[in-house]
């Protein structure tokens, strides 16, 4: 799922060059960045808790912000992680809206009415286990969730995540460690 370290290292300069071209006013570079990262950003925002129906809006906001912020991009960092960092900011704003909170609450109510059909054997493979995993992800704080999704799920390096979120690398590892612990604890709560 995650790109191999070597592939990532090779890809960074080309991606960075695209952001630099964009900063110089080349909008074609924005199209190329979109082609390359749209899927990543869409998956990333959904993993951070955005409904699929809202993902388009978040993707659009993210890439428009990429165009506006391109002059501030540090070419030593991964463009992919940088773009995800921008997406995370928009997701945070999105999640704070009261309407989304109500929608999320309604979704929880709906899920609670589903019949419990899981067994211990298919705990990690079943659809139900995926739903529980997502719920566990949802229970994390924003900071832990962002780090967990970017590093553990999207394969960004600790250094890139640190640059994207503006935090020390050690903080990335700490948050990641606690995020894993909390997710596993949440999953274990429902285990027979």
């Amino acid at each position, binding site marked *: *799922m995650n790109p191999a*370290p070597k592939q990532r290292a090779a890809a960074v300069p080309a991606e960075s060059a695209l952001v630099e071209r964009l900063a110089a*006013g080349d*909008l074609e570079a*924005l*199209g190329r960045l*979109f*082609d390359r990262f*749209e*899927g990543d950003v*869409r*998956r990333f925002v*959904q*993993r951070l808790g955005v409904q*699929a129906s809202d*993902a*388009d809006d978040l*993707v*659009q906001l993210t*890439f*428009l912000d990429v*165009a*506006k912020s391109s002059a501030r991009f540090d070419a030593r960092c991964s463009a992919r992680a940088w773009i995800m960092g921008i997406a995370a900011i928009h997701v945070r704003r999105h999640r704070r809206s009261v309407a989304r909170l109500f929608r999320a609450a309604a979704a929880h109510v709906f899920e609670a009415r589903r019949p419990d059909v899981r067994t211990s054997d298919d705990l*990690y*493979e079943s659809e139900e*286990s*995926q739903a529980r*995993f*997502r719920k566990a992800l949802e229970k994390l704080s924003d900071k832990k969730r962002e780090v967990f999704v970017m*590093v*553990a*799920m999207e394969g960004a390096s*600790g250094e890139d995540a640190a640059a994207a979120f503006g935090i020390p690398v050690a903080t990335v*590892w700490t948050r*990641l*460690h606690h995020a*894993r*612990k909390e*997710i*596993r*604890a949440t*999953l*274990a*709560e429902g*285990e027979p």
Partner: protein
Amino acid sequence: MSAQVERVTCARSWEASALEDGRLGPEGRVAFERHAESCAECARERAGLGQLRKLIDADARPEATPLERRRLRSEILRKANREAVAPHSRGRVQLVAALAVAAAVLIYAVARRPSTSGANLTATAPSASAHYEVDGHQGSRWKASQSGATTRVALDDGEAAFHVEHLAREQRFFVALPDGEVEVRGTRFVVSVDHGRTRRVQVTEGRVSLRLADVKERELYAGEAWERTADPGVSPPSAAAATNEGPTAPAPAASSAGTAPTAKLTTASAQTLVAGTTQTAASPTSVPAAPTASVNGSRFADAMTLFRAGRFAEADAAFAAFETAAPGDPRAEDAAWLRAVAKSRAGDTAGAQKQAQRYLARYPQGLRRAEAEAMAKGSQP
């Protein structure tokens, strides 16, 4: 799984996470794997992380179809291009909106408080109420208030020009005077009050109803002016005006005897007589001259009317006449400045510059100093 989470006490258990994240080098990875073979806790930790990895790998999310992706791409590029072409347009719109709101608040605040003396203040009513403007001339004191659909501007002293746009059926507009009131149905007019008495009402557009305590109610139409021609027990307007325009005539014996004051109704064509002579054939009684302050007010108001009508050359001449007639009048400074503006708007740039320099020479600390300095350098007002 809960057991795996809660019972980890081995000091090396963190290496399971480090291994998962690729933070352990080749040697460290081999060393930890060897340790995990003999440490049940670390083995469980690894297994738990491996199961979590399975969940992460199975976490598929809906993707956009190629058509949706293409549409979104076009939309993003279109918006980005629009912002790149007009990068400050949003800021400009926000700035204009902010300025409009600020202006509305300022205008509303000015309209609702008494004007300060010493400057011409123009106030426009908020859009929710009747649309009107009050141009309080120097030294005037007035206060606007709103009660439902009724607007009331209390003019306590001085002269003010009013412009009231046509009122809706339920709207009413009054100018409250110390000794009466003027009711308006959409018009332009000038009212002068001095020493608590209404001195003059001149209507340039529309119609007003004039109701004073000591004068029978009357209607004034466009081009008509009502002027108080005698006033018992009122001292001359001001020392400055008296000095500059000659001695003010004493109050007539009839007035001092307490008889009803007389009033003079003039038409637009007769206004020059009002301003320039002491008696007219239309005068109902043989009365002395009108107070000089009212005469000056009339001159200034006439000049303002010409200025507002866009007849700048005539306005310039009218203001010049006012300056000559009343150099010590508080409005002389306004007249000097407005002459420069009138010249500029009439296309006489050199004349405007010269007049601005003249203004600065005469009023070095004048209220319009900044604008005059700019105009003296050749800027448009």
